[in-house]
């Protein structure tokens, strides 16, 4: 098997909580706590979870927009976590990001041409003439027209702005695109357009995606493999089909059963979980899900379950499956 394009090992991010008059560190928010995964070239890895589970923090750490507290990120044979700031900037040519809010992520004072040319300037790609040609080319690729280049962000609708955000990410011909909730601010009909566009681009430009979202329907549609996060941990990671058809982790089961289905005749299997997500500043001991888990055992509050494969390609962190594992 070939090396995966991106490999993440033991990634952690702790944010300090400071307080008191001297601003001493009183505690830590464990936003991401020891997660590992890989992404193969050309595939889409979906990452789902509820708010505060650490999915966005993970995305930002892969780009080193946030420096990890611990852990290793290897991209295309290069260890990103040990690069200097300037080397990292060069590496970002191959990793680009699409953000959630198409309203906030485009500078309102810059024309679309200027916005799209920026990555080319930063990475010193081509001469001015060529850059301009490229801007027009990519506007067409994402379904806008070259005459849009002279306009400003406020003249576009949400869906069009997200297309511009995608075009900006594509300007440097990246290998990997990290999309953080790229369609959650969009209406259903526009959301479908943007998802289709992303799939077409992946096919035509051989892109690899990490798709971070909270909408389980959207993630199923776009992903080849899906990881489910809960309170900074990876609860389960598997091929999309097996994750949705045969979820193993009680949290995944509950999450899937909570999604409203657009079919009034659908009768669901209910796995109701009570209560709210606990605070990541003071996470429960042992398995972080044990406070809400319907299958809680004694061991769950004491020992952190291993995140390991139960079946080929299907990993889960849950004590229920401990005996099914190769020791």
């Amino acid at each position, binding site marked *: 098997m070939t090396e995966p394009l991106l490999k993440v090992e033991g990634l952690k991010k702790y944010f300090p909580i400071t307080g008191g008059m001297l601003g001493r560190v009183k505690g830590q928010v464990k936003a991401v706590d020891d997660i590992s995964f890989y992404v193969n070239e050309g595939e889409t890895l979906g990452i789902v979870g509820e708010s505060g589970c650490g999915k966005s923090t993970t995305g930002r750490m892969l780009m080193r927009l946030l420096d990890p507290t611990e852990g290793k990120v290897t991209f295309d044979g290069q260890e990103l976590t040990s690069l200097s700031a300037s080397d990292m900037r060069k590496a970002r040519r191959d990793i680009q990001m699409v953000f959630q809010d198409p309203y906030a992520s485009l500078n309102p004072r810059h024309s679309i041409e200027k916005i799209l040319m920026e990555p080319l300037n930063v990475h010193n790609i081509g001469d001015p003439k060529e850059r301009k040609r490229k801007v027009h080319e990519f506007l067409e690729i994402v379904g806008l027209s070259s005459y849009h280049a002279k306009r400003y962000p406020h003249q576009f609708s949400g869906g069009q702005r997200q297309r511009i955000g995608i075009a900006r990410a594509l300007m440097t011909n990246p290998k990997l695109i990290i999309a953080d909730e790229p369609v959650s601010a969009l*209406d*259903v009909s526009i959301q479908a357009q943007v998802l289709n566009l992303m799939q077409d681009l992946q096919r035509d430009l051989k892109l690899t995606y990490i798709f971070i979202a909270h909408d389980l329907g959207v993630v199923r549609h776009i992903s080849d493999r899906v990881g489910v996060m809960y309170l900074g941990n990876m609860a389960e990671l598997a091929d999309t089909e097996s994750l949705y058809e045969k979820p193993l982790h009680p949290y995944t089961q509950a999450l899937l059963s*909570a999604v409203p*289905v657009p079919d009034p005749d659908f009768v669901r299997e209910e796995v109701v979980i009570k209560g709210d997500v606990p605070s990541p500043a003071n996470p429960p001991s042992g398995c972080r899900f044990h406070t809400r888990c319907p299958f809680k055992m004694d061991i769950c509050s004491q020992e952190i379950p291993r995140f390991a494969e139960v079946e080929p390609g299907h990993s889960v962190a849950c004590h229920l499956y401990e005996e099914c594992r190769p020791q």
Partner: protein
Amino acid sequence: MDERKTILDVKGLRTSFFTDDGEVPAVDNVDFHIRQGEVLGIVGESGCGKSVTSLSIMGLVPSPPGKIVSGEILFQDKDLTKLSDKEMRQIRGDDIAMIFQEPMTSLNPLFTIGNQLREALKIHKKDWSKNQIQERAVEMMKLVGLPRAEALLNEYPHQLSGGMRQRVMIAMALLCDPKVLIADEPTTALDVTIQAQILKLIKNLNERLDTAVLLITHDLGVVAETCERVVVMYAGKVVEEGPVHTIFNDPQHPYTRGLLESVPDMRFKKERLYSIPGNVPKPGSIKTGCKYAARCEFAFDRCRVEDPELYQTAEDHKTRCFLFDPKEAKPNDRTVVES
């Protein structure tokens, strides 16, 4: 036909905003009704007028620039649009209550939960004693499934999670036993597991208290799961209305069909999503013809000149589309539509 009597009847409602560019109708000639104890869903994309409709019912349209230009909102034989501010205040929060999308911003951060719950009772139940008010507040907190009700009354909104705040909002709305509860995107800001809890609660309370619920949402999954009847809105107009099973199994209006097709379903993978071409039009930008004609794949000449009316296609099913006009020359092109 449903026997339950109509409790709220909206007739020909037109709410406009008067801007520098002239009158912009956000809600344009909207008709619908809610029966006692029913859950009615209004579904549509942003800018379709669903929230302005609910604000119009509550008499909360910001004025100026907004104004109810014409139409009637009949509640218990009273036309809400004709009431004075004082009369409206008596109905609002008492007979008709509302919960909003943002549980974070709809509670006052400076007052305790108890303070805010009791305020509504002090205004609407003037003859109640302090004890009665306190008892009622505790009772409602328990009803919506909040733990340690008494203690929570002394806490401030920031001490609660999003799901708990939305429960407090629901408790507050139900304090005076409203006959109609308007829920405007009540779960949009919440996570799925919490959303499931809140929807269940709303449905449960609807059955127990026989409160009619007007649920406004953009999420077709939420509609399918909670509503009995659905009103689909597009660009300020009702484009289709019918029982939830009919709308989802036999949608008629091309917009409803497109919308249903474009939702990624969690249960199976479609190779490619259907997507409606174009964008949601800005309110007031389309002056003639059917508002959906520019994005509709079945549009013909008449659609671009004439505005279709809401055609009755079955006893309880209405569609605003010329394809269903009994007088249309090519009647019942249903086979074409379905292919």
